[in-house]
């Protein structure tokens, strides 16, 4: 066991994957010689050479479309989209090409590619460098979407994503890059689609992913001081998501809160709330509550962004609201 930062855990996963499999190649904007805007790919070009680790021009559509072609050509490309906001420029390649090739061509081929991309606010990066757009990709049949919350999972899930025969969007929260955590000396893959109980509890279930896991764990500490035992479930991936783990927890706690940094409306929380309501309505002692960002672009100013981002107090408040909910009580919208 050694302590490692989240960014370096990703770096190590990339290096180990490239050592294990000569068909893994990396390309993206400033990933090679400069080592990546967040230093995630530092040293990889020196280690693996300029053929396998390449800087591209600022051409997101072609980076991503080329990943589809290289994957069809027998390689396993891992490409980087520098900020998740820029993935808007790669939507045809992801939605129309990568996601559909296996199905649309009758199962003739697979598209084993990974798109790594950072999302999330907290850096005052403004409306076009901070968005959490992962729900869009969860809506597209054919894509897998992974959002690791800590260094060990970042390593293990990225190894799984690179081995996976299907296209995977691997979402890294920018504020997590400096997070420290333990990584085994011989770390293993972490299966995509299996949630992790980050903290056990019996009073309410908080479902989270990515950076919101740490926020929920902090909320759980303040709730514990009030005598409320919250269970925190780290989804790890949102497409697919671990429905069984969530249902098992809800069966125990009878209360569910889904929290994420992304905008609440039409989000991951909406999907999970709807699904749990369909499958376990009778088990619920209160409505499912969602915690997410307000329906507005992420603002720039420190004061505005601070207020915009959902925090531990918002999650704790949602848990209390669930616990205090009375049938037939009118709740304020």
């Amino acid at each position: 066991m050694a302590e490692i930062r989240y960014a370096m855990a990703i770096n190590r996963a990339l290096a180990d994957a490239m050592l294990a499999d000569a068909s893994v190649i990396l390309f993206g904007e400033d990933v090679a010689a400069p080592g990546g805007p967040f230093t995630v790919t530092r040293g990889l070009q020196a280690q693996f050479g300029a053929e396998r680790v390449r800087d591209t021009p600022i051409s997101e559509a072609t980076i991503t479309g080329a990943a589809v072609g290289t994957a069809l050509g027998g390689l396993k490309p891992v490409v980087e989209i520098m900020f998740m906001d820029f993935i808007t420029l790669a939507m045809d390649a992801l939605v129309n090409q990568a996601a559909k090739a296996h199905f649309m061509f009758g199962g003739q081929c697979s598209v084993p590619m990974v798109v790594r991309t950072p999302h999330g606010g907290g850096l005052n990066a403004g409306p076009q460098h901070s968005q959490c757009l992962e729900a869009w990709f969860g809506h597209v049949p054919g894509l897998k979407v992974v959002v690791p919350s800590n260094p060990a999972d970042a390593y293990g899930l990225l190894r799984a994503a690179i081995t996976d025969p299907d296209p995977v969007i691997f979402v890294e929260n920018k504020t997590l890059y400096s997070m420290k955590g333990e990584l085994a000396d011989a770390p293993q893959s972490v299966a995509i689609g299996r949630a992790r109980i980050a903290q056990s509890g019996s009073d309410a279930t908080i479902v989270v992913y990515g950076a919101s896991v740490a926020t929920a764990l902090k909320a759980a500490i303040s709730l514990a001081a009030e005598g409320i035992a919250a269970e925190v479930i780290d989804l790890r991936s949102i497409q697919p998501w671990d429905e069984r783990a969530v249902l098992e927890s809800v069966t125990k706690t009878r209360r569910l809160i889904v929290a994420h940094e992304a905008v609440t409306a039409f989000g991951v929380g909406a999907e999970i709330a709807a699904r749990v309501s369909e499958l376990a309505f009778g088990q619920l002692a209160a409505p499912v509550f969602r915690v997410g960002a307000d329906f507005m672009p992420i603002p720039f100013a420190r004061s505005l962004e601070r207020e915009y981002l959902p925090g531990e107090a918002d999650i704790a408040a949602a848990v209390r609201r669930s616990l205090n909910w009375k049938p037939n009580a009118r709740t304020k919208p």
Partner: protein
Amino acid sequence: MQIELSQQELLSLHQTMVLIRRSEERLSRLFADGEVPGFLHLSIGQEAVPAGICAALQAGDTVASNHRGHGHALAKGVELRGFFAEILGREEGLCRGRGGSIHVADLRVGMLGANGIVGGGLPIALGSALAHQVRRTGGIAVAFFGDGAMAEGVLHECLNLASLWKLPLIFACENNGWSEFSPLDRQFAAQLGALGNAFGIPSVQVDGSDVAAVCLAANRIVGAARRGDGPQILECKTFRWRGHYEGDPQKYRDADDLAAARNRDPLALSSARLVAMGISAERIGTFERTVEARIEAAVEAACLGREPDYAAAAADVYTQTAAGTHG
């Protein structure tokens, strides 16, 4: 450098063009009879381009196509019964009836798919060329696109990146003068050759109705790409005889334009050349009837195919269905 084709080579090119022409004419009749679901975009009049270019390719080379892709698929050698079965929406189709005319693909012969998105095949072909380069397969990739795709941003991105990385990639433009329902002069302010110049990519313009000219030009530039000289542009001036899609009333097109198109019939040109080379019209006719018989057998077999199984399709969204719930 080869400057002329042998009788045998020209005969083989002619055969490919007949295969494309008669297959599409057959599809047109099936469409009129209501047998073809969805849209059908025919490339009748443009056969010399895929025939000439694919004749210059080897089995391991790859092509990415567009919505008008029947010719590319047939010239690259896709299995004929599976081709028709796909367009008819049958389980026995190359894509098990999930893609149709706009998504015909046969990875076994390097056909990476027709494409419903104008310009969508360009970066895929570029990625395929990158795979050839990195894996040292000795192969090259071809991106077939029409003049309509010249206005798409990805073409400009791909020209740039292909040049920077000296990729073994052919940009094969079928310039038929029509971007769907609009003429080229209202769609594109530049010239493809000038664009190639700007990116340091050599380009050749060729009469896309002359299969021999296309093939000889393709042989040269395919050789250059394979040698490691980097990407190449081949712009073929060609003519679309039909509408953008079958059923298109083409009110935007005048009779002179259509007549001009029909005056440059690539099959008539190659027939005349074969006769001039001493092959009898009778022998050419026998040859064509053999192709027609092959097509008829394939269509008959395709029509006997089953409707695709919904549950099998729904279970095949991913290669590897992960733990957890997808939808």
